[in-house]
């Protein structure tokens, strides 16, 4: 069964190359198939492929649906949601 959660790209630069790299590195630590789907135009990306994530062109404010399917889907989704909520650990929103 696929589970899903909505997130918003909230870091200042959006899913640029380094943020994408963090996302893909994290996704690759899980067995589950993980995808990101844009709420606005239905394009989707494989979270384990950096090119796929980069071509999603998710600018700040983009709403994404995270979907995971597999043995560790729960923890995969939780970890990825956390990455989004922590703004990819970028600090630029303060000040």
């Amino acid at each position, binding site marked *: 069964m696929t589970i899903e959660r909505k997130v*918003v790209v909230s870091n200042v630069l959006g899913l640029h190359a380094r943020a994408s790299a963090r996302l893909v590195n994290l996704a690759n630590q899980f067995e589950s198939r993980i995808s990101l789907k844009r709420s606005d135009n239905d394009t989707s990306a*494989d979270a384990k*492929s950096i*090119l*796929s994530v*980069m071509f999603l062109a998710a*600018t700040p404010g983009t709403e994404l649906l995270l979907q995971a399917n597999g043995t560790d889907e729960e923890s995969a989704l939780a970890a990825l949601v956390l990455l989004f*909520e922590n703004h990819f*650990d970028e600090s630029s929103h303060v000040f």
Partner: protein
Amino acid sequence: MSSSPQTNAELHFTGSGVSSGVAIGTAARLSTHARQPLFINVLPHRVPIEIKRLHRALHSARHHLESVKVRLKNEAGTTPAYFLDPYILMLNDQYLTQTIEDNIRQHRVNAEWAVKLSLESMLAACDRIDDSYLRERSADIRDVAYRLISILSGQRSEPPTFETPSILFAEDILPTVLAEMNTNNILAIATDVGGWATHTAIIARSLGIPAVFGLQDCASRVQAGMSCIVDGTNGVVILNPRKTTQTTYLGRRVTEQRNRRDGLRLAQLPAVTLDGVQCALSANVEIQSELPMIQRYGAEGIGLFRSEFLLAGDGNEFPDEQTQIEAYRNVLAAVPGSSATIRVFDFNQDVLICGERENPEANPALGLHGVRLWLKHEPIARTQLRAILRAGTQGDLRILLPRVTCVSEVRAARTLLESVRAELRAERIPHALNPQLGVMIEIPSAVFVCGHLAREADFLSIGSNDLIQYLLAVDRTNEQVGHLYHPLHPAVLASLRHIVEAAERTNTPVRMCGEMAANPLCAFALLGLGLRNFSLSPAALPQLKLLIRSVTIEAAQAFFREAMTLPTGQAIEEFARSILGGDFLLGMSGNAFLKVVE
């Protein structure tokens, strides 16, 4: 060498100085164009062989970049090393591999030609996406593709090296190429394209190599062995410099090296102007690992501890009371005998624990954030206040409220503080009795009520970055309007003067806790409008101190009076530059700050 008498004429080019410093030396050229790959139509039985070649090349490129990453980490630190991650991941990317393999099979071509075809289709896909920030990505993809093509065609196994100290000229330098080079013999870098924010610029800065990018047509006019000067501080490149020019720059180089060396020594000297006015410098701190650097850079206290960074560590759980007490005690312990100011959690709604966020905001900058959100979540606020009061038994720990817009917010916070204090008293837990409570002035409405705020609060802290963004309606990270972010805009200076006047009238301490003071031109204006208290990231403090120690308040005040008659930020910037003078500014490190706007 050449019959043209023009060959030896001194030539000047200007670009953008992306990494500060002056270098004088001889030119070397770096050819950065990947040679056009060979096109070969392969027979069907050769297809699997080409696919195997592709996989070997991917593996070798990946392996190589992994080792570059390790070396870069040792030489330049963790942050620049992480820039290599996207490239390494791309070389591991199923989608990329699949696309190239498909091209080999479909068109029956050799691996290098298939890489070229794949690159072209991916760059076309990038172009179709209507977003300027994708330009950076197409450069990343091109970098990876060129790398694969060179490996496949056996063009390059070793990164370019230079036998003698050289100034490197190129049309462009890919970030991975700079990262893999042995930079011992690279005195400076000059390229025709690129800018401040590119990965290559970031690597140059972290390796401390002076660099000027965006020189347009400079590289093609350079011949290897030509004598040249790169001034990364001012974004200038000079070919065939005359003797007099060389002498000038030799002098500047000496001054600059001395100033840089003096930076840390300076940290131990007092922050006093030439006419004897004492200033106070403290540090902005985000993470606890920064604490040990603070005294080395000469900070007298901690002007701003951004407590929301305690959240970033283990997840989105808010740290419990005990964890916070320990963190705040560590902060105090880093500045024995001085004060430390904890800014209470400044977050947006999206940081809040999952599920609590129901309606995503269309416009978070104008939404529920800062003290509004903090007051709304009383349990979180109470826990934080308890921790600050309890840690405050060990020193002068102060509380700072972010994004205040109205006096009622200060009153609500004070009521909460009283109630928490009563609670601790009832529980007989030791706590600070009378901690100072301050407000951030970073939203325009706060500027205009800051007389009232100053009467209710114990101190004022100016958050320049947000104040400028809100005043000018400019998001500095938005490429389309970022150039309009101008700290010396007359509206900004007038607002700051208004705040300082209100503070003087009410006898309330005021401090600037923003990066504006890191810019020498701005710092001069800030002294002129009456600020004496500054809090900055630790590494930027020596530079501010150098400025303070090099000017008189009288001159700064005269400058400010005159500046306020000028109509634009640009005009004020030019005026400041004309007073402080190029040689003085050249000595200041971190040229990013020399240009008020990029």
